[in-house]
């Protein structure tokens, strides 16, 4: 299959249009990205990191692209009803790939100097600053999807937290997918957290229309010395949605990153997370929770690179697979030569509830330093019979007992979230999800 051809042709015919509706900084790398994409093509399943998700068939259909930046009418508040009670957030919207500036939170919510806004506009205002970070860790030479995104992305989100500023209130960003035709979206996010700064981000994906959406997303996050970034991603879309998200994080000395991806509803999801430690004493927690049934497909692919000594990484991914769902987890911890005193733990636990559900797991360690403590564990299995029996003995029905155990299983990941109201909300959502009461995003009338 030659799915990449339509994108190469598209670039050839629409190059000028792409350029005219974007910022110079983003245009500067476009041709390079195009060359990298043309050279690599879309990855086949023979490419190790794409072994479990067939990109060729995902990118084969003919999607529309909004290259001309037409205004798509939408009222995001109408779509967004999955509010988190008791969680006071600064709420922003991204409509497809563009920052929605018609519904900004009222002033005074963000500390001075913090910028949350359109990447394109910010790049026009501060080209030198953006150029320092844009498309630097998301290398187009190494990943064709990143190359495709860099070549087509015209706008996105820019988040900047200046030195020493702590943003107390969590920032919630709703990615709204809205279109009357099948649509491909190329979204770009750039996060810069300077020395000693702190921010908590919650990204939610939400589909407003019952259309096929194909989203490529590239997030680049730079976390400077002593800074802290919490990045929670919650996906609640529908079966026709395909999401390919590449997250790149670079951590400097003594920084801390919490990255949590929760997939409750989706069609095909592929999350790639690449994290690099550049400074000593940094710590990261990557976690993910997947609850999938029907024909959902969720593939999490992570790479943690320990380039310097004294860093700690923890990874925990849990899957509950029902129906004909397919889950894949491939995690790789790479400890470079000289990265002594590294401590790394990777865990992947999976529950298969039906015969048709499939789980692929691949926890990998690659170690070139001797004074390290690295461990990984991976299991695929079922609920503990003894625990089920214990509960039934005490008058709890089998169905209820199963729910309780599955719920407890998934909660280990959710408990790692450092926003209490969000944690409560997720507990609630996950429980409803297991009960089958949450067959779509709550309160949403549009998607089926």
């Amino acid at each position: 299959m030659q799915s990449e051809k339509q994108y190469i042709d598209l670039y050839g015919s629409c190059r000028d249009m792409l350029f005219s509706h974007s910022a110079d900084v983003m245009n500067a790398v476009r041709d390079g990205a195009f060359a990298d994409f043309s050279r690599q093509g879309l990855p086949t399943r023979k490419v190790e990191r794409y072994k479990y998700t067939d990109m060729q068939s995902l990118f084969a259909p003919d999607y529309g692209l909004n290259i001309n930046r037409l205004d798509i009418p939408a009222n995001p508040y109408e779509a967004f009803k999955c509010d988190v009670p008791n969680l006071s957030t600064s709420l922003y919207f991204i409509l497809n790939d563009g920052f929605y500036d018609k519904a900004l939170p009222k002033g005074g919510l963000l500390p001075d100097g913090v910028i949350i806004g359109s990447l394109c506009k910010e790049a026009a205002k501060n080209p030198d600053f953006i150029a320092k970070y844009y498309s630097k860790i998301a290398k187009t030479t190494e990943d064709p999807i990143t190359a495709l995104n860099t070549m087509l992305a015209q706008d996105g989100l820019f988040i900047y937290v200046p030195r020493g500023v702590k943003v107390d209130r969590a920032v919630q960003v709703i990615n709204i997918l809205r279109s009357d035709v099948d649509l491909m979206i190329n979204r770009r996010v750039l996060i810069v957290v300077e020395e000693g700064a702190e921010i908590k981000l919650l990204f939610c994906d939400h589909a407003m229309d019952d259309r096929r959406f194909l989203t490529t997303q590239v997030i680049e996050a730079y976390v400077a010395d002593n800074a802290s970034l919490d990045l929670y991603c919650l996906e609640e879309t529908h079966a026709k949605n395909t999401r390919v998200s590449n997250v790149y994080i670079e951590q400097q000395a003594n920084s801390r990153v919490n990255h949590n991806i929760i997939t409750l509803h989706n069609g095909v999801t592929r999350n790639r997370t690449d994290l690099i430690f550049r400074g000593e004493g940094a710590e990261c927690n990557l976690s993910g929770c997947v609850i999938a049934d029907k024909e959902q497909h969720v593939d999490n692919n992570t790479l943690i690179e320990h380039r310097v000594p004294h860093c700690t990484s923890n990874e925990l991914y849990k899957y509950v697979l029902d129906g004909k769902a397919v889950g894949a987890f491939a995690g790789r911890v790479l400890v470079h030569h000289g990265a002594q005193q590294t401590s790394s733990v990777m865990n992947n636990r999976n529950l298969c509830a039906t015969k048709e559900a499939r789980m692929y797991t691949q926890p990998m360690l690659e170690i070139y330093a001797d004074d390290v403590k690295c461990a990984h564990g991976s299991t695929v299995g079922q609920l503990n019979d003894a625990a089920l029996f214990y509960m039934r003995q005490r008058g709890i029905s089998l169905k209820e007992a199963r729910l309780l155990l599955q719920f407890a299983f998934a909660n280990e990941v959710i408990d790692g979230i450092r926003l209490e109201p969000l944690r409560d909300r997720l507990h609630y959502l996950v429980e409803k999800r297991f009960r089958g009461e949450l067959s779509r995003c709550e309160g949403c009338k549009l998607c089926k």
Partner: protein
Amino acid sequence: MARMIIYSGIPSNSGKKVMETKSSDKNEFVRQVAEQKYEFGFTTDVHTEIIDKGLNEDVVRLISAKKQEPEWMLDFRLKAFRYWQTLEQPSWAHVTLPEIDYQAISYYADPMAKKKDDGKPKEIDPELMKTFDKLGIPLEERLALSGVAVDAIMDSVSVKTTFKEKLAEKGIIFCSIGDAIQQHPDLVKEYLGSVVPYRDNFFAALNSAVFSDGSFVYIPKGVRCPMELSSYFRINARNTGQFERTLIVADDDSYVSYLEGCTAPMRDENQLHAAIVEIVVKDNAEVKYSTVQNWYPGDENGKGGVLNLVTKRGELRGVNSKLSWTQVETGSAITWKYPSCVLRGDNSQAEFYSVAVTNNWQEADTGTKMIHMGKNTKSTIISKGISAGHSQNSYRGLVRATSNADNARNYSSCDSLLLGSDCGAHTFPYMDIHNDTAVVEHEATTSKISEDQLFYCNQRGIPTEQAVGLIVNGYAKDVLNKLPMEFAVEAQKLLSVSLEGTVG
């Protein structure tokens, strides 16, 4: 200033003494150790008939003709060769496999040729006899006390198979595969290529085209093989490749334990070794396969050494069948080896125990595949990697439970030990689970030798080098315990020799 005194153990082949050296002498001492380390590096001066270098259809035909093979065998080889020509050398393993010039290798070397030409009764050249004596391989029945039947293979030809007659009394066939093709064509035809088809991979195709000798074992129904069977492989001739093929068939209710050992002389250039081992295990039968692999690993600068590219697979075809792979890998410049089990029969059980030691510039990518297809199947994987010097040691394994494999159970544990800051230890486990009743667990740890343990030994007067040997042997104990007695001793010795000079 206090003078530094270093105590170091002397390698086992020079006797167990403790030597005192000044630190300035230490490099000299380490150099000596490194040089002495590979004790099987000698060559045998024996007349060997070697065919011209190069690989083409004529060479395949020539090998087949030299072995006086029937037509069907030649067809098999040619099919494999034609398929091989369409393939490219794989590059996915975590090793730096050099570009091998397949035309620069001779594919057949026969150290027995002279005797045959003389038309005298077939007897073994005393030089050859000496070689195997030196290697400690009992070729004479006078060594019957050892209780091991041996098939000794030098270069491309089986030199001698001992205890053949005694085994025949029980109906056991133990001979070289060349003899088996002549004498038991039906059996060979039925099983050869049935576990590892020639289309399996690049090296399997190459082996199927040019394999020269190897062992064939058939254990009839209900027979428990009374002694350990063993084959010993030796590469002697220069610029030749060894392509042996082993086929073991254990019929219903039978049992056999099979050992395999290998060595090669020290040479500057890489030698190619691409073997295939196929095992068929039928109802209620059990096979134990143990390997102590000690091919020449190259010198301390990574020059020379054997490229060990092996396909080993067992198929548990019968119900309640059992197969156990145990391997101690200390040699070879590059190891590319994944002894696998296909658990077809219901209630079948498979085990894989491995210790892989790499030192200097050695690279090993080894592990196993457990394919669960039958119901209630069980597999265990215990892998211990030890890397030192500048070596790279990888575990690569696959556990697959198909949708029919109800109640499949797997436990994998892979530990790596790092000695030195320039080596690498890697784990690449794959798990594909297509069944909701399967339970699969994998765990792995990587660490270095604990300072506490070393200090404890030092305190009690055990020098660091010996202490490392002690700790490593303890670490590998789970696997060494699974080896038959004779091998366990050899393996322990090998472990300590392989790691000489890594600490200090």
